[in-house]
């Protein structure tokens, strides 16, 4: 919403400066988005007249002028040396006294001598004022211009344009008068009284209303004005409209636009001679096309409220009129429409058709229901004044809706809700300035009648209880009604005083030492993040959606996870895993020449059946290593392998408190991994904690990463909360452990895990640890065989082991491994 300072002053009697006004607007909730004060930089320039212009004695191209720039300011007779070819006696000009900054030339002029002749100022071109194009000479003002005026004032440039943001609840501030009312209530002056004169109709309107859609339009007024002479509107009106960003069209249209801004009251004018028949009908659209005033063609549907004549739709009610019946310079008879339209229907119609207009903006926020009659009178008056003619009687369909509402305030609530002590008299006075009237008042509180223009206060309570909520809504609505209007009133009182007046109070501590802010699951994510970063991986944040093709590389792409209205075709599918965005990020880095890297992201992946809730959103820590390790002396750069990421996976799981001995690893990772070099980490038979491996070369190539790459995905939701058991005393045996190595020959298909598990279980009371230290294939072992070398640590408890006991324990290990895996001891 834009307005000029002078327009505001039509409604607000104030001595406040522009700065005070903008500060107050910000404070009271009418946020200032910009102030355009073209006059400020031109305040020193004055209108002047060249009294005489003589040839400079010492310079061919200069003239010595005697200038009258206003005797009252001491510039009644100034000598100015001027080089402009058009400087001549009798010309009205723009004069800059010494000390003036010339914005167009970036200089400040001084009094001095030019070639021996005194010069006490400068005569300026519009370019020098920063206003116009390059020109041959100085600006020529109209002949009858009085010398000594402020040029900015003379040219209408001293009227700052203020633009404010209007929140959806403040339809009343889409009017200069509404803004003035708020400012007056905030203590910045007085709202000037406004009363529209009444224009008596002297004939019956040849056009009448037929309202067949009263839900959409409870009340509509109109009247015909005949014998008008339409044409350009006067300069003051054109200036105002231009200043607020509107293009002056013609007087009749300009009048409607003026009241749209002045009173927040949109009007529409039909060329009465182009309306077919004698009736304008308000009805639902029926699929007809309307060429609207913006030149677009729109098809009216049954949810639209339209205004139609005998030929069909002529206007989208409250949104935009039609081109055919619009008022033009040839219009001699005009029908003025002034209606109340349902805000919701206007909003939805406008949104459906994609039409934005000043009318829609106002109707969808709600129009003052008490204003139509006087607004129509005011508009009639202005049309008659600007265009002449005579007005008919007013025709009307429907009645003003019942808008009277009351709102109660317990004064104590200013403190217990607003947090500030306000004297009751002060609160009541603030509300009265906003147009509230006191109905009843006592020590505890007061009840007010809400002004007609504040449709945001004490409105009927609409709730949105859950669909499955079976509680009776009536008492719930009553509980809201008991406090809601009061909240509105507290807000009004507070905002007029300024919220900076509310003292800031710290919350009382819940406990002297704060409790943990994170749940165990949240803490897991934080720990995983720090751990992965400390292992050299760099954290990324990727979009949760990607292209369907990209997502399909990593999992299912169900329709239920595809956006209906993506912002771009390649951002339409919810990603199954952060890998789906991490891998392209790696490819982009590689394309930039950063060929070796390690990235990770902790974020959502979608479509995981194991996680409850819509969309199967799982928290996934995904890490990706690509390219080679660092090249350092003595160590060749090795390509990343599954072992790198398996180490990442196990390090995270260990840090998260997962018992390592409870984990099993199987070779059934999904298809975005290399089928033979990837695995799944489970706890128990079902719970998948992680999957890892080298990426399938085809997947890497599909995103443009043609180099070794290995990844891990950790499912943080699946990690169980660590049991907070008290640890018993540690076992610290005094006897030395005994280590024995075994080399088993097994079939190629036997896993290391099977051998280790069998060995570990062979003699639980004695075996303290089992580890694999060598794998050997080929040689004399023959095809399909391999050798796994393990170390078993025997921990004696009470006394040292004898050779025989050690022998027996070793035999148990061999037997257990042989039984479980078919292994034989390597000879």
């Amino acid at each position, binding site marked *: 919403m834009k307005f000029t300072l002078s327009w505001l002053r039509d409604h607000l009697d104030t001595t406040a400066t522009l700065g005070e006004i903008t500060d107050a607007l910000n404070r009271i909730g009418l946020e200032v988005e910009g102030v355009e004060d073209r006059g400020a930089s031109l305040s020193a320039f004055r209108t002047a007249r060249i009294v005489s212009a003589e040839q400079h004695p010492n310079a061919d191209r200069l003239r010595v002028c005697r200038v009258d720039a206003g005797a009252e300011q001491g510039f009644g007779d100034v000598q100015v040396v001027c080089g402009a070819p058009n400087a001549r006696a009798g010309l009205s000009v723009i004069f800059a006294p010494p000390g003036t900054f010339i914005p167009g030339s970036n200089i400040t002029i001084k009094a001095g001598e030019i070639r021996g002749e005194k010069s006490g100022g400068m005569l300026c071109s519009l370019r020098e004022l920063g206003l116009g194009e390059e020109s041959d000479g100085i600006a020529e003002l109209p002949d009858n211009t009085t010398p000594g005026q402020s040029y900015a004032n003379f040219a209408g440039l001293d009227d700052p344009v203020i633009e404010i943001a209007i929140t959806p609840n403040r339809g009343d501030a889409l009017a200069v008068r509404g803004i003035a009312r708020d400012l007056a209530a905030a203590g910045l002056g007085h709202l000037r009284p406004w009363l529209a004169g009444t224009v008596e109709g002297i004939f019956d309107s040849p056009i009448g209303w037929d309202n067949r859609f009263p839900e959409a339009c409870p009340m509509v007024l109109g009247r015909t004005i005949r014998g008008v002479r339409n044409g350009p509107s006067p300069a003051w009106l054109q200036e105002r409209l231009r200043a607020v960003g509107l293009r002056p069209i013609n007087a009749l249209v300009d009048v409607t636009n003026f009241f749209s801004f002045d009173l927040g009251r949109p009007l529409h004018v039909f060329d009465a001679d182009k309306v077919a028949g004698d009736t304008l009908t308000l009805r639902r659209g029926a699929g007809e096309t309307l060429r609207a005033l913006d030149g677009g063609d729109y098809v009216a549907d049954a949810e639209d409220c339209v205004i139609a004549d005998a030929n069909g739709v002529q206007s989208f009610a409250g949104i935009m009129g039609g081109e055919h019946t619009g008022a033009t310079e040839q219009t001699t008879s005009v029908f003025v429409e002034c209606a109340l339209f349902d805000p919701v229907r206007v909003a939805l119609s406008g949104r459906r058709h994609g039409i934005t207009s000043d009318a829609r903006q106002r109707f969808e926020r709600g129009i003052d229901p008490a204003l139509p009659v006087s607004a129509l009178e005011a508009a009639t008056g202005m049309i008659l004044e600007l265009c002449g003619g005579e007005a008919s009687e007013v025709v009307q369909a429907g009645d003003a809706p019942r808008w009277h509402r009351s709102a109660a305030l317990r004064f104590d609530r200013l403190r217990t809700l607003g947090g500030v002590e306000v004297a009751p008299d002060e609160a009541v006075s603030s509300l009265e300035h906003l147009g509230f009237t006191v109905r009843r008042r006592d020590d505890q509180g007061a009840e007010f009648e809400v002004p007609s223009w504040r449709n945001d206060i004490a409105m009927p309570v609409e709730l949105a209880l859950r669909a499955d909520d079976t509680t009776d809504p009536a008492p719930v609505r009553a509980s809201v009604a008991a406090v809601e209007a009061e909240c509105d009133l507290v807000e009004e009182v507070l905002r007029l005083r300024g919220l900076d007046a509310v003292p800031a109070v710290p919350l009382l501590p819940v406990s002297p030492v704060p409790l943990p802010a994170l749940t165990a699951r949240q803490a897991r994510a934080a720990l995983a993040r720090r751990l992965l970063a400390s292992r050299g991986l*760099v954290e990324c944040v*990727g979009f949760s959606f990607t292209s369907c093709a990209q997502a399909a590389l990593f999992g299912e792409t169900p329709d239920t996870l595809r956006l209906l209205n993506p912002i771009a075709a390649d951002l339409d599918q919810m990603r199954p895993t952060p890998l789906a965005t991490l891998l392209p990020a790696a490819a982009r880095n590689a394309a930039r020449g950063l060929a070796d890297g390690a990235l990770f992201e902790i974020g959502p992946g979608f479509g995981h059946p194991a996680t409850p809730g819509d969309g199967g959103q799982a928290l996934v820590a995904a890490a990706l290593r690509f390219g080679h390790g660092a090249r350092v002396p003595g160590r060749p750069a090795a390509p990343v392998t599954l072992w790198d990421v398996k180490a990442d996976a196990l390090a995270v799981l260990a840090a998260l408190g997962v018992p390592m001995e409870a984990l099993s690893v199987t070779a059934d990772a999904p298809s975005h991994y290399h089928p033979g070099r990837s695995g799944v980490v489970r706890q128990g038979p079902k719970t998948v904690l992680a999957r890892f491996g080298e990426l399938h070369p085809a997947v890497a190539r599909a995103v443009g990463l043609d180099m070794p790459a290995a990844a891990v995905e950790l499912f943080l939701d699946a990690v169980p909360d660590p049991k907070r058991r008290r640890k018993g005393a540690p076992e610290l045996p005094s006897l030395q452990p005994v280590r024995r190595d075994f080399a088993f020959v097994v079939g190629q298909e036997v896993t290391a895990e099977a051998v280790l598990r069998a060995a570990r279980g062979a003699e639980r009371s004695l075996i303290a640890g089992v580890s694999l230290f060598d794998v050997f294939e080929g040689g004399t072992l023959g095809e399909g065989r391999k050798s796994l070398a393990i170390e078993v640590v025997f921990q004696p408890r009470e006394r040292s082991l004898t050779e025989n006991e050690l022998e027996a324990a070793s035999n148990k290990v061999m037997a257990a491994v042989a039984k479980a895996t078919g292994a034989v001891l390597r000879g």
Partner: protein
Amino acid sequence: MSDDLASSAPRPADPVPTDVADDLRALRQEVLDSLEAASDLRAWDAIRVGVLGKSGRLTALLKELGRTAPEERRARGAALNRLRDELGGAIEARGKALDAEALDARLRAERVDVTLPVGTPASGLIHPISRTIEEMVAIFGAMGFSLAEGPDIETDWHNFSALNTPAHHPARTDHDTFYLPPGAGGAVGSRLLRTQTSGVQIRTMLQNKPPIRVIVPGRTYRADHDATHSPMFHQCEGLVVGPAAGDGAITLGHLKGTVIEFLRAFFNQPALPVRFRASYFPFTEPSMEVDIGWSRATGEIGAGTDWLEVLGSGMVHPRVLANCGLDPREWQGFAFGMGIERLTMLKHGIPDLRSMFEGDLRWLRHYGSSPLTPALLHEGL
């Protein structure tokens, strides 16, 4: 150094007594010469064994002493003992010297170029968005807030309706919402990507009885993509609900106190100017926007005379409380919300929003923070 050691090898310090037999004199000279000639510990050990070993020459002479004539035995014994002491000392000294020489040679051989790079993998880094969230958790955690979370795919009810934003509400046009196909039995538009994390506030109120103090950082989505908008971004909202009356009533004063404390701690400026302006949100009443002081010219926070909007807030609307099953006559509270990217960009002087999501390693290495940098109040943020 080795020359010094060599020159300190034992030499006859005193003239050999005249009464010493020629054989001992010769032995002495021979041993001393060979010690001097010994260039390594092996040669030295051979000399030692040859002289003082079980069957060493001096050992043999001492053994023979018993067969010496009694009148000579005394003098010869004394001479042998002196010789044994002297040679023993000389051998030990030479041994030490050779030891030192050998160690010195080894150390010389093991010398390396200490300027060689060690090849430690480049340090990993935390994304600035995560960093900001950690800091928010630390600050609000100290004020008794805990962290709440909810799904990115929300229902229309949680994201809008329950928040007093019905379908026709003009505020909805500010949210360019991404929609997903409705689930079974749902209407088009009923399933969406959350445009704000407020749905988690709703879930929190439905699941927990007041008092409530939560912050909700998380991903949010709006169909907007240009230099200053990203279709995905992060918000952190906060919700406090407590009694509506009495000494424990949660008022707008608490909202101001909480927000001011947070902003000053986050920007590490105890006197950061904070301004409150009346505003409007469908889910709060009264509502306000919060500005901090900054300099438009330099971008410096807390300096200059300009104001920068960083946060929206207000007292929870009675309808929102009622929609969540809380009686607004009994309970009231405040809520606030802020853009995590915006605060991050301000704090670290990051010029471009979109770069946050591109995964460019050069950018990440510039703005990322070490995983060991504390996000703990007692160590400093």
